[in-house]
């Protein structure tokens, strides 16, 4: 076996001091096929999923662009600061379905294409090195650059396929051929850029997750720069052009389509990928450019109880969620005046924002608060799922083999999540309130919105209780909590508009808090929700004490 391999090796013969250029790529073809085989489900799922999503958006939005009133509603989302969140807003003076989908929902496709590409490249380069498989593969007739090249080839192919597919979906729904393809290409271009960026970040760190996090940060920064740039000036300012996402927006499909901005995307993809190759040539297999940082020799003195241990393990997540929700709360809090302008607002939207023109702003803030609360619910459910991961991965086992009871261990998680939730709602509420107070020049919003956010805590604690109960009784079904969360969001947004019956709305724990700050805090509801949450959590704890610890 070994001898066969050496015999076949093209140029590792004696005297060849440096590898020949072609050698560095030896085996690329085989690796490409190997990647396609390993991703034979994942990659088509990404592509078809995005095609399906586009189809859904097109059909959904077509229903919303029928009357002038509806188009006025959509305009609100496409202009000013709100519009800048999604894009520069081309075509908003005469909104059509395809213009709206490309101009607003285009952002979702950019982000998805970027994620598909960056995960793909990281998965087949750094992740392979990290788990040692690359070493095994590279000891065969596989060149130094083969892994990276193969991953980039597949990423490029996937993005070309994506461009064609999205163009096809546009055409199939009757929205022009060339512009549809241009939109597809704009999405694919974002994917290519982030494949290139990831080719660079995977060289820097030893860990796949850190490499994807870095590329993800670049994506976040690209969005922030584009959004800020587009806020400064209608249809984008010079600042916008520093973001690769802007280039894909600036192709202006269905307005006056132009291809040349995509040259910038291709250029950046090429530059970053080349830099990746250069760095890759300067390091060992498995190593990063930045050596892994050493940590503490001893644990901090406070890390000594199940509660503090749960906090230590959840800390990064809690901080991340709080920062993200605070930023979005600040943004949405400041946008109130503009969004809640009653002129030309449709009946539907007035219903959603509380039903009365006089309290539109409070109604809007109520929707934002409810939305934030549901997002906080995601954090809480993820927290319970991470406790479950601790259990199944076997990390809970050595802890529960110490003098730590099941109650203390899982109770520690629940306590950290509950306190973290309340602290987070407090901080986010303050931030939203301050932004609204500044925008409205009315200081009372600080207190009102803080209270409004906290008023949602009991409802979200019921979600925590539900997840805790499932953890104890039927841990495989913790995911059911997601459905409840999704249902609550649905009821919060559309319950009024769709005239859902009272009982159907009452199924949502979030609904019982009303729509603060529009509604006052209802103390009986608050107390009832807290009691239900406590009962559910206690039942979960008892059930966990009685069941086997499950490790896989």
């Amino acid at each position, binding site marked *: 076996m070994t001898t066969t391999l050496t015999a076949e090796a093209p140029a590792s013969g004696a005297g060849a001091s440096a590898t020949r250029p072609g050698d560095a790529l030896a085996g690329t073809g085989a690796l490409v096929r190997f990647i396609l085989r390993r991703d034979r489900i994942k990659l088509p799922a990404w592509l078809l999923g995005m095609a399906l999503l586009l189809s859904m958006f097109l059909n959904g939005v077509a229903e919303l662009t029928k009357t002038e009133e509806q188009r006025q509603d959509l305009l609100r989302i496409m202009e000013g600061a709100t519009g800048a969140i999604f894009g520069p807003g081309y075509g908003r003076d005469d909104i059509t379905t395809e213009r709206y989908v490309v101009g607003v929902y285009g952002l979702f496709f950019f982000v998805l294409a970027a994620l598909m590409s960056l995960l793909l490249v990281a998965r087949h380069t750094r992740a392979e090195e990290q788990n040692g498989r690359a070493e095994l593969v590279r000891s065969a007739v596989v060149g130094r650059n083969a892994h990276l090249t193969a991953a980039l080839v597949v990423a490029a192919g996937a993005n070309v396929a994506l461009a064609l597919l999205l163009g096809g979906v546009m055409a199939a729904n009757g929205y022009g051929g060339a512009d549809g393809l241009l939109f597809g290409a704009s999405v694919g271009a974002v994917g290519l850029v982030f494949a290139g960026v990831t080719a660079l970040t995977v060289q820097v760190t030893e860990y796949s997750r850190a490499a994807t996090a870095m590329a993800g940060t670049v994506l976040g920064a690209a969005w922030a720069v584009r959004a800020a740039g587009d806020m400064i000036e209608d249809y984008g300012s010079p600042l916008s052009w520093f973001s690769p996402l802007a280039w894909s927006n600036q192709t202006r499909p269905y307005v006056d389509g132009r291809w040349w901005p995509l040259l910038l995307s291709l250029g950046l993809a090429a530059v970053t990928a080349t830099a990746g190759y250069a760095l890759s040539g300067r390091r060992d297999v498995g190593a990063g450019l930045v050596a*892994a940082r050493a*940590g503490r020799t001893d644990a901090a003195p406070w890390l000594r109880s199940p509660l503090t241990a749960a906090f230590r393990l959840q800390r990064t997540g809690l901080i991340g969620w709080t920062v993200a929700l605070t930023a979005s709360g600040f943004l949405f809090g400041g946008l109130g005046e503009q969004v809640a302008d009653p002129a030309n607002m449709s009946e539907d939207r007035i219903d959603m924002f509380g039903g009365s023109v006089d309290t539109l702003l409070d109604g809007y803030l109520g929707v934002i608060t409810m939305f934030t609360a549901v997002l906080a619910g995601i954090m809480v459910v993820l927290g319970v799922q991470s406790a479950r991961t601790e259990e199944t991965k076997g990390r809970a086992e050595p802890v529960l083999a110490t003098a730590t009871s099941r109650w203390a261990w899982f109770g520690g998680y629940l306590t950290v999540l509950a306190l973290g939730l309340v602290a987070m709602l407090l901080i986010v509420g303050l931030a939203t309130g301050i932004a609204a107070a500044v925008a409205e020049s009315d200081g009372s919003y600080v207190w009102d919105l803080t209270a409004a956010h906290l008023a949602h805590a009991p409802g979200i604690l019921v979600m925590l209780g539900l997840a805790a109960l499932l953890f104890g009784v039927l841990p495989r079904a913790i995911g059911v909590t997601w459905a409840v969360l999704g249902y609550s969001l649905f009821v919060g947004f559309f319950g009024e508009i769709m005239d859902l019956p009272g009982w159907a709305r009452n199924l949502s724990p979030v609904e019982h808090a009303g729509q603060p700050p529009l509604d006052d805090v209802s103390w009986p509801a608050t107390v009832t929700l807290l009691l239900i949450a406590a009962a559910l959590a206690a039942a979960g704890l008892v059930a966990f004490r009685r069941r086997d610890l499950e490790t896989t």
Partner: protein
Amino acid sequence: MTTAIVTSELVKAFGRVRALNGLQLSVKTGEVHGFLGPNGAGKSTTIRVLLGLLRADSGRAEVLGADPWREAVALHRRIAYVPGDVELWPNLTGGEAIDLLGRLRGGLDKARRDELIERFDLDPTKKGRTYSKGNRQKVAIVAALASDAELLLLDEPTAGLDPLMEVVFQDVIDQLKAQGRTVLLSSHILAQVEKLADRISIIRQGEIVQTGTLAEMRQLTRTTIEALTRQPVTGMERLPGIHDLEAGDGPVRFAVDGEHLEEAVRALSQFGVRALTSHPPTLEELMLRHYGDELAAAGEPAGDVR
């Protein structure tokens, strides 16, 4: 109290798999007890039941005089555990993990912790996700051995260690034994426990099939001998307890029952022994003997095992 662990008729099923099938285990206080069995025999399941992490379907288990399911927490203050598959927290360092586990048990001896880290040549500043399997195992071993637990439950603790570290490990366990602590040491390789264990229990398909000292067990089994002699070996086949004899032009090979070893070696020496190797029975051979008994009992030809 003379027994640290007693189980009787322990049964534990996972769906249709009966992981423990009437397990009878007994470990005396102060002994190092080898717990041997092939993969999937039920070693880890037994240890998890003894820790109260799993609840037995039926049967009784008593650890340090208490019921491990009902009095788990109180018991755990007196027990240290090394899991079979050590998983560490990705963003905690090895040192942090050792301290956390030690403190949760009720405190650990800092000097002893540092000494063990040094002896096992462990870098405590690395993050959990960067440790190799062997190093993850060392973290769990240090956390367990730095405690003053009376009873240590070690599930294949040396599976990922290199030979050098295995020697260190044996040394440390010897120290613990000298201090009178009780150790249950599981493994699927006889060689890993034979240096340490006072007594051994062999588990197969959720049942203990043999218990005793290694010497007792060896009595019941065969040693394989291979020798190079000056003169051709003849007549060995007439001696009692000789099996699988191969005596031709080259070296002579045979297996001999433990009780007849002395006679065989004496006979062999007459032919002028130039080189001699002997292989004590491996776990597989100890197990095979049991299979052999079972097969014979079932009235089937036991082949060359018998």
